[in-house]
C-alpha cells in the first residue's frame, strides 16, 4: 500500500542533535520497529514521520512523494500515542468517529465504520463508554481503532505498550501484529523493548544517540550486530576493550596480556577495538586449556530454564557465561573459552 523513505533526515535541538542524518526505506506492508534506549531519537524520528516535527534537513517521502512540509492533518499517517491520548470528554464511539465526522461523512457510514473498526480491534460493544471507564488494554485498542478508522496508509505507534503490565503487553503484542497483518498496513513501531521489536517487527532499526546503528531482521541484529552498541543493547554481551592483532593465522584481540580469537572484518592491525562475546558463546571448562581463561570468585545465578556463571578474570574483569540448569560449581577452578567473539572498531564502551 505505501512505502516510506527517510533521506538524510536531521533534527537538532538547542545543543543536541536528536536525529543525525538518518536514512531509512520502509517497504510496503512492512512492520518496522525503531529500537533504542530512551533519548536515542526514535520518537523524534516517528514524530517527523507523522508531521509534528519538521526536520532541519533531509526529506521524508511517502510513496515517492515528498511530504516533508505537510502538516500532520494532511499526511496519510495515523499515530497511536504512548499515553493513548484518548479525548476524555468523548465516548469511545465519538473518539473513533471524530476524524470521520470532520470529513462530513454520512451518519450511517460513520456508525458503520466505527463499529467495524471496534470489531477489528476486538472490542465490540463499548461504544457508549468513556475512556476513563476502560482498562489500559481496552484504551490501547480504542486508540488503535481511532488511528485506523480513517484508513491511513501508514500506522505509527509510539511505545504503545509501555503503560501496560507484563502479561497484557505480551497479549497486545500479538494483537497488534495480527491487526497489522489483517489490514496489511505499513507500520512503524517505536519501542525501547528489544523483545517487542524482535517478536513483532519484520525489520528492526536500532538507533543510538540520534544515529541509525543497524537495520535488519531479528536474526541479523542478534547474530551479526553491526556495532558494539547493537551487540550490547540486543541481548547481553561480554564487552572487552583491546588492540587488534592480525599477525597470526587468525585475528586476535590483545586484552591486557591475554589474546582472544575474534572475527574482525575490515579492521586494520593495531586498531583499538571493542570485543563482544555473548554468554552462550562462552565454553565452560573444568581444567586449563589453550585459549581458556581461569575465572575467580565464581558464582551462579539461576534463571530457571538455565543458569549464568559469573566470575572475574584479572585482565578482563567480570565475565559471564550461559550454562545448563544442571551445572554446579565444585572446588576445582573453572575456565572459560571464547567460542565466538566479534571485534568492533573503537575502544570506547558503548553508551546508551
Amino acid at each position, binding site marked *: 500500500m505505501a512505502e516510506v523513505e527517510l533521506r538524510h533526515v536531521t533534527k537538532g535541538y538547542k545543543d543536541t542533535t536528536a536525529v543525525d542524518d538518518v536514512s531509512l526505506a520502509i517497504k510496503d506492508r512492512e512492520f518496522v520497529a525503531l529500537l533504542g534506549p530512551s533519548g536515542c531519537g526514535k520518537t523524534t524520528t516517528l514524530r517527523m514521520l507523522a508531521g*509534528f516535527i519538521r526536520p532541519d534537513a533531509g526529506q521524508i517521502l511517502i510513496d515517492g512523494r515528498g511530504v516533508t512540509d505537510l502538516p*500532520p492533518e494532511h499526511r496519510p499517517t495515523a499515530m497511536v500515542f504512548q499515553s493513548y491520548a484518548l479525548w476524555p*470528554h468523548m465516548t469511545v464511539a465519538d473518539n473513533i468517529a*471524530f476524524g470521520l465526522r470532520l470529513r462530513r461523512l454520512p451518519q450511517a457510514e460513520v456508525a458503520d465504520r466505527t463499529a467495524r473498526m471496534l470489531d477489528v480491534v476486538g472490542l465490540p460493544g463499548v461504544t457508549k463508554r468513556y475512556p476513563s471507564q476502560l482498562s489500559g488494554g481496552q484504551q490501547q485498542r480504542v486508540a488503535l481503532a481511532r488511528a485506523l478508522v480513517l484508513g491511513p496508509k501508514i500506522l505509527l505507534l509510539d511505545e504503545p505498550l509501555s503503560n501496560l503490565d507484563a502479561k497484557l503487553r505480551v497479549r497486545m503484542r500479538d494483537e497488534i501484529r495480527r491487526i497489522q497483518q489483517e489490514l496489511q498496513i505499513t507500520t512503524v513501531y517505536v519501542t525501547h523493548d528489544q523483545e517487542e521489536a524482535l517478536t513483532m517487527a519484520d525489520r528492526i532499526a536500532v538507533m543510538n544517540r540520534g544515529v541509525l546503528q543497524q537495520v535488519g531482521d531479528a536474526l541479523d541484529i542478534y547474530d551479526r550486530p553491526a556495532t558494539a552498541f547493537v551487540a550490547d543493547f540486543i541481548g547481553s554481551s561480554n564487552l572487552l576493550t583491546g588492540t587488534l592483532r592480525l599477525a597470526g593465522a587468525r585475528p586476535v584481540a590483545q586484552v591486557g596480556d591475554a589474546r582472544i580469537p575474534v572475527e574482525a572484518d575490515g579492521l586494520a592491525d593495531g586498531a583499538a577495538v571493542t570485543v563482544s562475546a555473548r554468554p552462550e558463546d562462552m565454553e565452560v571448562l573444568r581444567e586449563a586449556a589453550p585459549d581458556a581463561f581461569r575465572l575467580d570468585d565464581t558464582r551462579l545465578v539461576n534463571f530457571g530454564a538455565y543458569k549464568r556463571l559469573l566470575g572475574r578474570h584479572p585482565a578482563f574483569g567480570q565475565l559471564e557465561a550461559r550454562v545448563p540448569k544442571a551445572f554446579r560449581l565444585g572446588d576445582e577452578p573453572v575456565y572459560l573459552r571464547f567460542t565466538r567473539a566479534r571485534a568492533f572498531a573503537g575502544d570506547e564502551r558503548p553508551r546508551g
Partner: protein
Amino acid sequence: MAVVTSARAVPRRRRFDRSRAAGVLLVLPSLVYLTLFVFIPVIKAFATSFTVRDRDDAGNYTYRVGLDNYAQLATSDTLRANVIFTVFIAVTSVAIVFVIAYVIALALRFGKGPTAKLLGRIYIVPLFIPSVIASYAMITFLANHGFVDGILQAFGLPDGAFPKIVFDWKGIVITQVWLSLPFMTVLLSSVLLEISDSLIESARDVGASSWQIFRHIVLPLSAPGALIGVTFMFLGVIGGFTVPYLLGPNAPQMLGVSMVYYMTNYFEPYIASTQAVAIFMLSLVAAVYYVRQQFKREIR
C-alpha cells in the same frame, strides 16, 4: 484473674484513627476563625433580615419579627430592577472577561513568539492595582471629555459624539473586565496547561484544523475548570461595591451599592441585610455548583 476476664469482656475498640484526629486538629484553627469572623456575622445578618421596623407619623420606630423585608424586596420595582441589573452586569462582564482571558490563555499555552511573551507580562498588571485606583483611572480615562474622548476629538470626533461610558453600565463592565482579567487568565491558563499536548496532536493527526481542535477538543476539555473561574468571578461581581459605586449609573443600581445606600443613607439596615441575604442566596446557587464541579473532578 478477674481482671483478665473483664479485659476480655470489653469489646475490641475501633482503632483510634490518627489521620482523622490530625485532620480535625489541623482544620480547627481556620474553622474557629471562620466561625468567629464569618459565620456568626452571617447568622446575625440573617436574623436582622427578619427584623421589621415600623415607623409612625412622628418618626418613632417599633420593631417586630416578620417576612415584610423579603416581601418588599420582591414587590419593589426599584429593588427588582436592581436585581436584574446586577445579574445583567455580572453575566456581561463575566462573558467578556472569559473571551479575552481565553484568547490570552490560548496564546500563553500555544504561542511562542514575542507577542505571547508580552501578553504574559501585561495581563497580570491589574492584579497589582487596587480596585479603587483602577476605578479612578477608568473615570479619568473613559469619561466624556476624558482622555479617550479628547484623543478622538483631536482626530475629528464631534463633541458629544463619544458614548456615555462612565455613569453607565458600560463603565462598570469595562472596569470589571480590567480588574478581573488576571484572575480569569491565570485560571484558564492553568486549565489549558492540564490539557496534554498528545490530546491535541492526536486530533491534528486525524485531520482537525486549529479551529476544530479548539471547538471539539480544547474548549470542552477546559469547560469544567473554566466554569469554576466563571463561578468565582460571578460571585465577586455580584457582591461588588467599589466599581459600580464609582462608575455606575444612578439607577438601576447594583445590589452592592443599593445595599450600602439602604444601610447608610436611607437608614434601613434591615432591608440592607435582606438584600445581603438575597445576594447570598443567588451566590449560593453558584457556590453549590462550584463545589459539585470540584467533587466531580476529584472523582476523576
